[in-house]
């Protein structure tokens, strides 16, 4: 099975978010592989180990080479090669333009299965996956918590309100992965060494004018008051104060 996995490099969750002139200050950001995409890599590698084939990683990012080690780590857990599309003015906040560029490259790979995370933990639009599926002319299933392969048919469990939608689909199809899908393995030292010899292809790409909506202004959410501790001699007393507040102030009871 020929599998393409799309990887988004996102700011590390510990990154400090600072706003200057209505824009998020990005210079200090350290980047990491989007955690949801790691589940996609792990699941893709498991399929490859069961039925054979190849796992190709495709990422779109800037010229910043500091991400290469993280992508190599994804090859250490079993992906076979990496293609990084380098775009000078890359922004993770352009799902439509980014989907167009990524779909061009994915098309060339003739993948049976295209996988990515359900969303990036930077902009949370959950948009790039379904958009790429449309540009490739294949169906997609999003937010999948369990994916099984039997023959050339896939069975996907998609998280919906109050339950799961179970969907059967032939390939080609694009799947976006939710957290429960697969437990990402720790690579062995031998695999880390091996990954350094796997193909890592940097390609320059231009910009694509998309329909993406430009953010006009960013702000931090209003600071919360917080910090009020309800004192009391006993649990009963503290709970009484809480209930009083919930009734009279918050008006939720």
């Amino acid at each position, binding site marked *: 099975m020929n599998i393409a996995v799309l990887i988004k490099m996102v700011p590390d969750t510990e990154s400090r978010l600072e706003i200057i002139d209505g824009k998020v200050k990005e210079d200090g950001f350290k980047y990491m592989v989007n955690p949801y995409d790691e589940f996609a890599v792990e699941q893709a590698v498991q399929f490859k180990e069961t039925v054979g084939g190849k796992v190709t990683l495709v990422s779109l990012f800037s010229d910043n080479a500091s991400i290469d080690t993280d992508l190599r780590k994804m090859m250490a857990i079993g992906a076979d090669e990496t293609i990084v599309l380098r775009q000078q003015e890359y922004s993770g906040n352009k799902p439509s333009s980014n989907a167009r560029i990524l779909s061009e490259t994915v098309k060339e790979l003739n993948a049976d299965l295209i996988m990515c995370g359900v969303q990036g933990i930077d902009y949370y*639009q959950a*948009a790039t996956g379904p958009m790429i599926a449309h540009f490739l002319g294949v169906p997609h299933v999003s937010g999948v918590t369990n994916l099984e392969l039997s023959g050339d048919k896939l069975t996907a469990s998609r998280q919906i309100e109050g339950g799961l939608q179970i969907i059967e689909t032939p390939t080609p199809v694009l799947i976006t992965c939710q957290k429960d899908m697969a437990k990402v393995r720790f690579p062995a030292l031998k695999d880390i060494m091996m990954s350094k010899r796997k193909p890592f292809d940097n390609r320059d790409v231009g910009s694509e004018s998309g329909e993406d909506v430009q*953010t006009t202004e960013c702000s931090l959410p209003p600071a919360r008051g917080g910090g009020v501790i309800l004192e009391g001699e006993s649990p009963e007393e503290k709970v009484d104060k809480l209930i009083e507040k919930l009734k009279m102030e918050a008006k939720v009871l």
Partner: protein
Amino acid sequence: MSTVILVGETDGRGIKDVSQQVAGVAAGMGEVIGLVIGKNVSESAMKLAAGKVVIADDERLEYYDPVKYASIVSQVVQKNDATKVLMGATTMGKDLGPRVAAELGWGYLGDCLEASSEGFVRPDFAGKVLAKSKPEGPLVASIRNNAYPIGESWAGNVENFSGDIPDSTLNTTSIEKIGAGTIELTEANIVVSGGRGLESPENYEALIRPLAATMRAAAGASRAIVDAGWVPHSHQVGQTGKTVTPDLYLAIGISGAIQHLGGMSGSKFIAAINKDPEAPIFKVADYGIVGNLFEIVPVLKTKLENL
């Protein structure tokens, strides 16, 4: 005046609240045409708060399928020269919206917190940053359940969808209900969440779920106990889980890592119960109780039951 297509969803009882809220938002943006897709949805569809409602009611549309549904939305958009498509940020809306945007070649804004003719606000970095925009081109947007007033329901014109339903290779074989009767996290007015302070999965079941039931709340969780396998990921609040904005968020035994705070600090009120007075959760809590949760939660539940 521009035409707005409002994609409404049914939930077995009628039109979902979030759809009626988005109907109210849509009314401020132009002439609203509702669209409801499904099987045996005609009766509910007529309750959608829109002057005109298009109903695509067909056996082949029983289960959500992005290929079929996106095609139907696009056809209705084109037939009516619409320039906006709005829907609730449900699991369907967040999946359908981007596919429709790609099909139409339009802009897309997902999971918006605010939407009006003045502009849109959406949460970046799990709500740690608010991003405003004022899109000028045609747009698809999914909008989160919020404090919007529900659109006024009235019997307008009803029209049956007469376009094509494309074939799709996706085949929904079943819907598995998990925790039937429980309230969905992102739709709940109150969320009761538990964390590692509970010490065991049994205590989550014994303390958090019953309290949530008493308060008619959804049950949430911190990442720590999801990773430990106590509860499924669908319960997780925070950066790699759900972002929630209920009227009350009650955090029990949760210390409040920055990734967790990002997912719930948009709540109207936050209450926290934790034994550690230094826990970061108290910095954002409107009402904090420092103490042993095993003593406090049962007292709270009993008192709430006797209100």
